[in-house]
């Protein structure tokens, strides 16, 4: 991973993909959205696991942004990515709820590829 400030498209993609995966997990941890997607409430353990995974994803996105885009731009890029990713989650949950889980799972290898390029 390149430690120099870059702010390249791959650095933004990495932050975006991690934010998306994290926010999707947080969304699935919520009873209302879980029921819409899996036709049932999440168990307590499942909800907690999703919440922990979600916050880890958001934290990882912050770390990735700061490492690939420096302290100068990293936080800016992180905020922007969270907004873009959250809009994507809301769009999927409202119009294609069944796609949320596969999309979040696809986001992880995308993040890995982007990390390799960033």
């Amino acid at each position, binding site marked *: 991973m390149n430690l120099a400030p870059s702010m390249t498209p791959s650095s933004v993609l990495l932050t975006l993909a991690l934010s998306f995966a994290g926010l999707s997990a947080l969304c699935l941890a919520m009873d209302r959205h879980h029921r819409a997607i899996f036709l049932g409430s999440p168990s307590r353990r499942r909800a907690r696991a999703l919440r922990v995974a979600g916050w880890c994803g958001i934290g990882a996105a912050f770390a990735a942004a700061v490492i690939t885009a420096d302290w100068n731009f990293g936080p800016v890029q992180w905020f922007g990515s969270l*907004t873009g990713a959250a809009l994507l989650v*809301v769009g999927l949950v409202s119009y294609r709820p069944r796609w949320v889980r596969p999309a979040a799972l696809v986001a992880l290898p995308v993040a890995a590829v982007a990390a390799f390029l960033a």
Partner: protein
Amino acid sequence: MAWLHTWAGLVTGWVMFCVFVTGTATYYRSDISLWMRPEVRAAAVEPGVAAERGAAYLKVHAPKAVAWFVSLPQEERPLLDVYWFDSFDTPIKQATLDAGTGQLSTARATQGGDFLYRFHFELQMMPLVGRWIVGASALILLVALVSGIVTHRRIFSDFFTFRRDKSAQRGWLDAHNVTGVLALPFHLMITYTGIVTLAFTLMPWGIASAYRGDELRLFVESGQSPAWRAAAGRPAEGLPLAPLVARAQGEVSEPLEMVIVNNPGDAAATVVAVFEEPKGLAHRHPQVVFDATSGDVITRLGTLKPAAHVFTSFLGLHEAHFAGPALRVLFFLCGVMGSATIATGLVLWAVARAPKAGAAPGFGLRLVRGLNLGTILGLPIGIAAFFLANRLLPVELDARATWEGGVFFGAWGVAALVSLARPHARTWREMGMAAALLFLAVPVVGALTTDRGLDFLGFDAAMVAIGLLLAWGARKVSRYRGPARARAAVPDALARA
């Protein structure tokens, strides 16, 4: 505090919607400018050579000026712009030159993306009046933002919630909440930093009392501009600019942006080489100042005092010049969401106050509905007409750049009158479709009237995307019949808007 949010949002909504839309477009100001000057192609000209071409023009046309400014051709603006002051009491004068020849440019006269940029903070009014209106509205918007956060009790539990299949009011409220909450960091940042950029206009008294008529000294003391050297009153031949420029370029690695000659032709003349901002959040320009006759370096500007650094960082964050293409898309998206938050809030005000079936709407509601429609769809219609005018007005027309602005306001004015005359669901649909067709026409007209073919794919794609989005919205509005159980009560979502 809900009433505060409602009314603060309503009174500033129309102005701030225009500010957000034009500001969002300004993230692509240079792309818009390139599209609007199809005759101009990038020409590789050495900065020193270009500076001398600009100075040669000014020597003939402005020999008695107190200062010359030569704005060097950049990739996103391949023209040579020269500006000059005949005296400090007269307005600045400007000419656009061809970078390759140094003669007046024959490209069509247009303000390009600068039109939307200036509208963003001056509304194309007298600058001071426009800035006051925008500044005051932004202050009230900040109140609306903070009171909105306080009012919204379910920020986290409704974070991902958009119920589009419940009542019309619920759908608009969710859309307002989602676009508002998801881009909240942007909304707070852009509103606050926007107010900061206008701080000297809104609060001139601090500087006025500290500097007492010598306000320019603030910029000198904060390290933003070099001290002014008074003219000696004796004529002297200045050194050629190209070698000075080359020496300055040896010291600073950023691209050269502008060369300033103060007191040209005088023995005390100075030459200032101004560079683009180094990569960083702050908006600050490194400068090297030379004595124009001896060639000695008088001073170098680069690092700012802390307060000025904070100020320019706020400016930099607002303008996002640092953002590469990917991050720029996110800034643009946030700007679109800000515009959508305001638009949905305005519509929501009207939807929530819809009269019972059969009752006639009052004057206030009719006015708000008309202004909503006239602003939310009128402004896009004006912008699309502005782009079309750029391609369709004859190139040799007198005051052509002014006419482009005239078409912008003319089209918007017609749209606003139509919406005030008959503001109901059908007008939303018809005007939405009209706006969509205008945007879809832009790439077609552009391709038919120029020989640039596929040079503007990004711009064309953006126009098509905006057109399709408007058409989709208009179709949604015309198809929406409300949820089954409420269908009898809500025959048409926007009959109420």
